Structure formats: structure tokens, C-alpha cells
């Protein structure tokens, strides 16, 4: 396998030719709601098998669907977050097929008339920003879970997940690399978490994707035949599967073969995709409008009311941070992409210097969270306390260096830095008279170095600073030390 090109573009080199990779994603995002889309059982993750299953979910004779209004609002909200067209009228269709985890023998979904139409998201890539088109978003039921590895002869079925509301977000085939896929998923997740419409937790299965991959020679306009890789549940696997699949397709084309349009699965152990369904078994879903339901209709006023409830979204927040606080796009991006981080940041800057806050959060705090494997929502140092710490630096009570020590002492949990500084006597020495005394002492004890410095060895300045800090037990105010030393060594 040849190397992936190190160009700005993600390309596959083979026999002197360059192939472009075309990727489209169908993301399935579980809607955050109390109850399911068409039934009144709970959607909570992690419950014991079949304890969140209603008679409707298990498709008993005579059971009928009744739609959850909140799920509709969540879908509309998400559509607005994707800058998409909201369709005032949409239809629920039955998608008919047989599977053990599909009790009705059909899934209630939306086929030709989805609730949300075309939209877009903007990605921040290292090469600049790129707009990815959204084709549509529709609501549908999630299926139950089939467990194959408990009983050797049988498959066990848990219907807890059956009927949970899903938003299927279909992108246009605008993605071109694993990096873009990563940013796209992160962006979608970020938007939905901001909106509170999906928690984006891939480990719990609240966010999954089917990946469509095709290749074509660079410069060609026509799309190649695509293959669908189903149910990839982590970004890492998405990237790996794309790389593998794209190379597989290039191999076939280079040998003069044709790509069969098919559905494939990513084998995470072997790191390869394999065919899931042959053409003969291809499903004929026989979509038709669900006669147990009616068309979903709402007016523009309904949508506007929802629009008003929408909080500031990541892109807007980022622009505001850059403009108002003069943060760099890079910093701003980090601070807004996660909702909890942006909340934390905004809490800290209520009372503290913005630049320092940004630095401390993206620097020390993130390092600490990484080390302890915690989310910012679980941070042992609260926004308030971080704010206090930053203020101590700003008002000169402690130096930046000491602050790092205090920070470490705070990292076991919930200590007010003001108390820490007091207890450990870490207040920096900023009295000019005291510092003069101290510095005079240093100068007196190092006359030979003073001579060397005055004769031109300017680097020795650092030595004096170091000595002053040593003598003061690290508490001397570095800025003042510098100023006074400069004066005294003239």
C-alpha cells in the first residue's frame, strides 16, 4: 500500500495516479427525551434487559403509535442548528423488513417527506474552514439489541432501545478525508449538545454512523460507485474503516475491476471491511405512509417559537469570543467546541481576566483533566476557584510560577486558592523595600559576578534573578526583581 499523500488534500497514490476519496455520512443521533418516539416507556441508558419496553414497543396485537411532541421539537431545533430548511409538512412511512430486534416487522421512519430539508455546517480544518452540505434530517424509531455472544445456539433480544427516537442526519457527499470526518462528527455533536437534543455519547450508542465511501481519480467529476459501511460507533473506527475501504476500492480499480455497490461491516479486530449483504438479499423496504399516523403539520409560528429558545450556538459564540475578547481563532475554537468548556470559560471570565482565563483553561486545566481522565463537568477545580486563582495572579498576590504550585495543591478537589496561599504562605513578596534589601544582599555576595556582568556578560542577569528567587524562597515578585536588579546593576 502506497503512502497517503501528504498534500493539503487527502489523496491515495497508486502507480503514479492520485485518487480522491468521497465520503458521505448518515449519522444516527438518539434524541434526548424522557420517553420514546411513539410510546411511553423510558429511554434511559443502561437499564436491565427488557425493563423499558411497553406493549407498543413489543408490537403486541392492536397496539398503536402516538407521537411524542418533544421529539418533534428536538428535531426542529437540530434542523435550525444545522441552518436547514424546516418542512411544515412531513410524512411518517413504514420501512418494512424482518429482523429479531424489529418487533413490528417494520420501522416507522420518514422516506420522501422528512421533517428537515437541506442545511449545512462549517468545519474548522487546519487548512481553513469548509462548508459541508446536509441533505436532510428525519425522525425514526431505533431498533432493539440483538445479543449474539451469550448463548451459543441462540440470539437474545433486548427491546429496551426499540422505539427510542433517532434523528438521521444525512450529509451530502462533501467530505474528503478522515480528518474532515472527525471534524464533522465533532461539529454535529457540539451543535446537538449545545441544543440539548442529543448527548452525543458514542460509547453509549447515542451517536452512530453509516459511512458511504467511493473513490475517483483526482480531477474527475463523475462519482464512483459507493459502498456503505454500517454502524460504525467511534470516530477512530470511522477513520480506519474509511482508509481501509478507500484503499480496497483503489486496488480493485487499478486492477481493472468494478466496484460492486454493497453494504459492508467494519471488522475492528482485523481492521478491514467485509461484505455484509449480497445483492440477492438486498432489502426491498416497500416504504408506504404509515396508516396508523397522519401527516405531521405545523406552521411557521411554531418553528419561530422554537427558534427563540435556541441558545447561542458554537459558531456564533466563537465569533463573539474572537471579536469581543480578542481571542485567537484557535483558542476560541477550543473554548466553544464543547458546551461544558464554554460554560466553564464564561463562568470564569465573569470575574477574571479573559486572556489569563483562556490560557489557564486550555493549558493547565486541560492537562489536569487529561491526566485524571475527567470531563470538564467533573473538574476538581471549579470555575469559581479557578477564577479566584487567576485574580490572585492579576493583582500580584502570587506570581505565575507560584500559581502553578497552588493549582497543583487545588487539584485534589475544591480548595479555595486564597486559603491555600494563606496556609502555605505562598504570597509573593512585592514590597519594594524588602526586595531591595534582598537584592542588595545578593549583589554584595556575588561581587565577582557583578564585575563580569558589568564588563559585558549580559547573560549573567538571569543568574542574579535566580539567586534572588532562591534567597526569597521563590516568593519574590519576578517583575519587581527584574526592575530593581536592572536599576542596581547599572
Amino acid at each position: 500500500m502506497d503512502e497517503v499523500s501528504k498534500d493539503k488534500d487527502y489523496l491515495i497514490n497508486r502507480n503514479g495516479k492520485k485518487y480522491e476519496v468521497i465520503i458521505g455520512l448518515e449519522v444516527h443521533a438518539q434524541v434526548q427525551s424522557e420517553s420514546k418516539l411513539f410510546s411511553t416507556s423510558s429511554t434511559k441508558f443502561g437499564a436491565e434487559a427488557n425493563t423499558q419496553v411497553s406493549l407498543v414497543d413489543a408490537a403486541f396485537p392492536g397496539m398503536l403509535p402516538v407521537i411524542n411532541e418533544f421529539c418533534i421539537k428536538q428535531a426542529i431545533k437540530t434542523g435550525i442548528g444545522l441552518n436547514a430548511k424546516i418542512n411544515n409538512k412531513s410524512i411518517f412511512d413504514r420501512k418494512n423488513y424482518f429482523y429479531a430486534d424489529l418487533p413490528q416487522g417494520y420501522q416507522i421512519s420518514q422516506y420522501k417527506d422528512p421533517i428537515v430539508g437541506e442545511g449545512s455546517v462549517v468545519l474548522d480544518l487546519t487548512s481553513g474552514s469548509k462548508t459541508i452540505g446536509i441533505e436532510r434530517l428525519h425522525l425514526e424509531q431505533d431498533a432493539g439489541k440483538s445479543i449474539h455472544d451469550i448463548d451459543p445456539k441462540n440470539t437474545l433480544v433486548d427491546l429496551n432501545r426499540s422505539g427510542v427516537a433517532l434523528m438521521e442526519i444525512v450529509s451530502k457527499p462533501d467530505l474528503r478525508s478522515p480528518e474532515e470526518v472527525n471534524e464533522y462528527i465533532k461539529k454535529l455533536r457540539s451543535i446537538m449538545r449545545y441544543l440539548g437534543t442529543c448527548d452525543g455519547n458514542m460509547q453509549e450508542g447515542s451517536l452512530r454512523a453509516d459511512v458511504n465511501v467511493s473513490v475517483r481519480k483526482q480531477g474527475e467529476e463523475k462519482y464512483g460507485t459507493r459502498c456503505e459501511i454500517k454502524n460504525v460507533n467511534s470516530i477512530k473506527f470511522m477513520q480506519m474503516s474509511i482508509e481501509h475501504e478507500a484503499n480496497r476500492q483503489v486496488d480493485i480499480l487499478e486492477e481493472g475491476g468494478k466496484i460492486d455497490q454493497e453494504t459492508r461491516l467494519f471488522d475492528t479486530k482485523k481492521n478491514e471491511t467485509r461484505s455484509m449483504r449480497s445483492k440477492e438479499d438486498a432489502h426491498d423496504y416497500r416504504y408506504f405512509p404509515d396508516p396508523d399516523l397522519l401527516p405531521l403539520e405545523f406552521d411557521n409560528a411554531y418553528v419561530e417559537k422554537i427558534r427563540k429558545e435556541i441558545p447561542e450556538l458554537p459558531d456564533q459564540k466563537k465569533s463573539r469570543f474572537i471579536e469581543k475578547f480578542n481571542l485567537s481563532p484557535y483558542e476560541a475554537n477550543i473554548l466553544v467546541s464543547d458546551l461544558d468548556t464554554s460554560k466553564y470559560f464564561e463562568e470564569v471570565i465573569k470575574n477574571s481576566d479573559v486572556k489569563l482565563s483562556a490560557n489557564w483553561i486550555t493549558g493547565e486545566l486541560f492537562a489536569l483533566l487529561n491526566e485524571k481522565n475527567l470531563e470538564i463537568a467533573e473538574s476538581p477545580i471549579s470555575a469559581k476557584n479557578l477564577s479566584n486563582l487567576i485574580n490572585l495572579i492579576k493583582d500580584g498576590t502570587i506570581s505565575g510560577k507560584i500559581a502553578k504550585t497552588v493549582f497543583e495543591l487545588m487539584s485534589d478537589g475544591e480548595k479555595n486558592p486564597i486559603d491555600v496561599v494563606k496556609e502555605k504562605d505562598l504570597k509573593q513578596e512585592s514590597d519594594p523595600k524588602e526586595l531591595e534589601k534582598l537584592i542588595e544582599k545578593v549583589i554584595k555576595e556575588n561581587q565577582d559576578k557583578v564585575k563580569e556582568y558589568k564588563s559585558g556578560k549580559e547573560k549573567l542577569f538571569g543568574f542574579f534573578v535566580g539567586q534572588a528567587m532562591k534567597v526569597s524562597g521563590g516568593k519574590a515578585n519576578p517583575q519587581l526583581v527584574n526592575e530593581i536588579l536592572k536599576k542596581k546593576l547599572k
Partner: protein
Amino acid sequence: MSDIINLNLSELVSNIKDKKISSNEVTSIYIERSKKSKHLNSYNEETFDEALRKSKEFDSKPDFNKKLPGIPVAVKDMFCTKNIKTTASSKILNNFVPTYESTVTKNMWDEGAILLGKLNCDEFAMGSSNETSYFGNVISPIDKNLVPGGSSGGSASALAAKLTPTTIGTDTGGSIRQPASFTGTVGLKPTYGSCSRYGIVAFASSLDQAGPITRNVKDSALMLEVMSSFDNKDSTSIDFKRPSYSKDLSKNIKGKKIGIPKEYRVDGMSAEIEKLWENGKNYLKNCGAKIVDISLPHTKFALPTYYIVAPAEASSNLARYDGVKYGFRTEGKNLIDMYEKTRSEGFGDEVKRRIMIGTYVLSSGYYDAYYLKAQKVRRLIKNDFIDAFKKIDAILTPSTPSSAFKIGEKSNDPVSMYLNDIFTVPVNLAGLPGISIPAGLDKKGYPLGLQIIGKAFDEQNILNIAYSMEDKINFKFDVKDWWMK
């Protein structure tokens, strides 16, 4: 005592309320008759012991404010009844015991009624003769060689044989009205959305409606009052103010305009049916109504439309019968094998035929030509009615093209069986209310019915028209207990 059997529902109710008879007396008599009538094969499941217990319970603490106080009722085995086997007359549900109650039957029990048992029907309500049931065909009390009609054959047979004072069925293409017509009883299919479909084994979702089969129109009105309700567990249930159908029942139909659709005069219509219809017109004129000729131009396309739409919906509704969650299962070497064997053995031939039709008309390449086409023609059929109802208040037609046919006569030719529904099917396609009342006998002495079709939610009007006509027709038909052992 035997007089109790001859009391109609409304009379039973008032006698019970006046304490002239007890629930236990009534229930006991009906149970006795039912036990002696196994030959008719009307029952799938009997709940006689429980019924007697409940009747005694009622008598010990009677509530005379109820509309069906202590009245025993047997119901079609398409209604899920809590803790009582519900089979849809199919092998695939032959051991299914629901843990829940359908809304329509719950309404009845809430009004004091007592379950006698579950009545036989065509499998999954698919049929017009009750010959497709897994539990064997139902015999009509009219004559041992006759079908009672279908799919609510068990209900019509039990009612006509006086094994139950009243009953309920479901009607998707005529399954209440046609058997009522065949057995000389009154069958009402309400407006789509009037009775909740929650807890009723679904056949064709956009066509199914529950309704009463009774001895007379007044009983029908009382039953509708009890059955019809808004149900928020059914998204197609309509929230409208339901009148007190029985209280507001009136014979005054002066000035009502009754439409006679020319397209219902089908080729080869028998002279008897023509005469029946003509008589009907005269009865109406006698009541002071006006007869108006109307046209429902797309009538002849109703049956083929129905036989696309109903099987399509059924093929999807019956996909849940897969042996996984409940019902019959045959072991298979893998999941697909299990599905195929279970459904092949669990469903009868007519059901399989309809599932295949339905799957085909929805399948890739055929959806536009069949299903979509049928939905468009359905719109045209509905529009025909909307246009006609601008000038008239109700429509009069025969209920069936003939009286009851012989057992086995049509069971080999699906299309000829389907033609039974020719007058009833358009009403389901348009979602309108329709009632069949016995209006005469054919030359063999078998009952014939006339159908009155009304505007959506205008049941009161068609009940009134039926009530007036019933009075004038004065239909008398004695069913002798020839089958009793």
C-alpha cells in the same frame, strides 16, 4: 323464561333496571343456549363460569346507571380481552392471551356488560363467509348449508341464533354489514375514527372499524353510544361530540333527501335485489323522505382499489406475527428459516394470499402502478361521496348482491368471493358510516338487507332513517332452533 330470549337489548336493559329480571337469569339462559349450540361453531372461546360469577356479582351490587347493566355479550375474537385468549381465529395466535383490553370492549365492561365468550370469524378478519377460520367454518342458523357471511360470521350467527343478546364485530370492507344482511340482523359500521382501534387485532389500518351487530336499530344506537369514544392511545381516533344516539333516535325523517346511486345497479343484478331496492325507496317515500338520483362515477373501481390497499396494509400489519414475542412458533435452523416455517404454518391460505398481494403491490417497481394508483382512485371515490352529499342527506343501496350462499360455493374462486363486498367496500374506502337493516327475503326465504350510507359523523341521521324504515318494513323472521342438541 323463554321470553327473556325474545327481549331485545333495549328491553333487557329496562327490565333489568326495573328489577323485573336479574343479570344472572339473563346470563344463565344465554349460556344454556350457547352450550347447546356448539354445532354452529360460533364460539372460539367460552367464558361461561366467569360470566355467571360476574352476573351474580352484578346482582348483589347492581348499578342501574350503567347503559348495559349486567348484560352478557359475546364479542368477535379480534378484540383483545384481558386474560382471555384472543386468536383472530388464526393458528398463529391460537395460544395468545393478552394482558390488556381493547378500548371498545373496555367501554362495554365499564357500562356493566359481561363477557360471554369470543366469537369465531374469518382468519384475521379476511373473508366474506367465515370459511377461512383456523377453528373451522361457522354455520348460519338460517340454514345448515349456508354461510353466515364474514368476516364477523361468528358474531352474526350467534346473534341470529340468540346465543347472545347483542354483539360487536369489525368491518374493513363489509365484515359487519354483509353478515348482518345474510342473517337478517342489523349491522352498523361507524365513521372511521369513531370507535378506537386500540387493542383490536389490526387488519387494514385505514379501513378497520368496530361496530355493533344487533336485532334492531334501537339496540344498534345504544351499542354505538357505548362503543364510540375518543381515545388518545389511537392517533386516528377523532375527538368529536358524540350524541346520545339512542336518546336522540327519531322516526321523523320528513324532507330528508335520499340518494340512489345509479352505478350500484350492477350488471346482472338479480330481479329480487332490484325489487328490494325499489321497496326501500317506497318505504322512504312513505316516511316523507325525497328520493334523488345521484351518480358515484368511480364505484366500479372500489373493489379493485380495496384489494390493493387492504392487503398492502395487512402485509405490513401482519409482519409482527413472527413467532418471536408471542403466538405460535415452529423451530427453524436459523432465524429466517424459523420465520418462514412459522408464518407458513401459522397463517391460512387466504391470509397468505393477501399478504402476498400486499407485499407485491408495495414492492420495488410496482408501488406506483398499484399502491399509489389505488390511493389516487381512493381519493376519487371519496370525492364522489363528498360531491353527492352536497345535495343529499343519505344514500340507499342494497347491502349485498345476493342472499347467503352455500358453504363451499365460492371458496375456490377468490375473485367471486371478493365480489360479495361490492356495495360495502366503497363506504370503508371513503371512511363513511353505513348501516345494513334486514329488508326482505329472497325466493328461497333467506334474508336480504338494505344499506344506508351517511356523511362522516352523521350516524344519528342514518340511524334515524334506518329506524323509520325498520318500522315500515316490519321484518319478521323466525329462526328455529334446529341445531340444538
